[in-house]
């Protein structure tokens, strides 16, 4: 029985006016052309899930990844490169197998992304927390020496 449709109407009928389907269509049509960047059309950074923000004393990286547990994440900082891996710890797949899906858009597959951080960081002091489906990574910046004037006395 389909409880989301009345009298045989299409399942999952929705009314949103989102540009996301259009973005996906344009990406699929033009991604084969070298130099095409969908963010030039729609704005934002499509294609990357890592949102990097440079603050005064640290770099903050946000990674939306709902429905996971903290054991699913592996985070590496090597030099100025941050790598985030999302692996399935097993419990998601077990509970997905025997369900009767009417609509299935969510995924619990593995994912990996690396990004070059725009500033020098102290990788050993990286902190991460997972809350409300967002992985938040905080990496302290390396204090840069200010280019102040050096007065040299002639002896």
């Amino acid at each position, binding site marked *: *029985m*389909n*409880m*989301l*449709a*009345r009298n045989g*109407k299409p*399942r*999952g*009928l*929705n*009314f*949103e*006016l*989102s540009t*996301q*389907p259009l973005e996906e269509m344009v990406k699929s049509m033009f991604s084969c052309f070298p130099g095409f960047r969908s963010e030039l059309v729609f*704005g*934002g950074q499509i294609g990357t899930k890592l*949102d990097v923000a440079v603050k005064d004393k640290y770099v903050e990286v*946000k990674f*939306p*990844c*709902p*429905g*996971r*547990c903290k054991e699913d994440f592996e985070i590496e900082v090597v030099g100025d490169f941050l790598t985030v891996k999302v692996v399935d710890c097993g419990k998601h797949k077990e509970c997905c197998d025997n*369900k*009767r*899906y*009417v*609509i*299935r*858009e*969510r*995924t619990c597959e593995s994912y990996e992304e690396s990004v070059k951080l725009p500033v020098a960081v102290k990788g050993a002091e990286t902190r991460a927390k*997972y809350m*409300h*489906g*967002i992985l938040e990574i905080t990496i302290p910046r390396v204090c840069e020496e200010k280019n102040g004037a050096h007065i040299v006395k002639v002896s």
Partner: protein
Amino acid sequence: MEDKKCFSVPENAVEVRPAVDVIEEDCGVKIMFEVPGANSETIDVSVEDGVLTMRAVSSLTRNGGPICYYRAFQLSDMVDVAGIQAKTQDGVLTLCLPKSERATVHRIKVE
């Protein structure tokens, strides 16, 4: 579901269509929305004229405005609207839509 009359979406919010799973179960239907950055205080679920509407404001931003997840579904009259339950965990909103009494199968033994 409770009425949240004070729920409002910021004017500069960027509307995003969240991914969903709709799963049929023996006792009804379960809908799972991906709403990272939203919590019970920033999620609004309502049913009006047979249309279930979900709005959720996230702590994530895009183009300078907060992300607002929005999605709506037409419900059949087989859903017990008064019995809908909602919970959120780890950025996933789960709605349990029980079958109404009309939808339950009554088997009649032929003598």
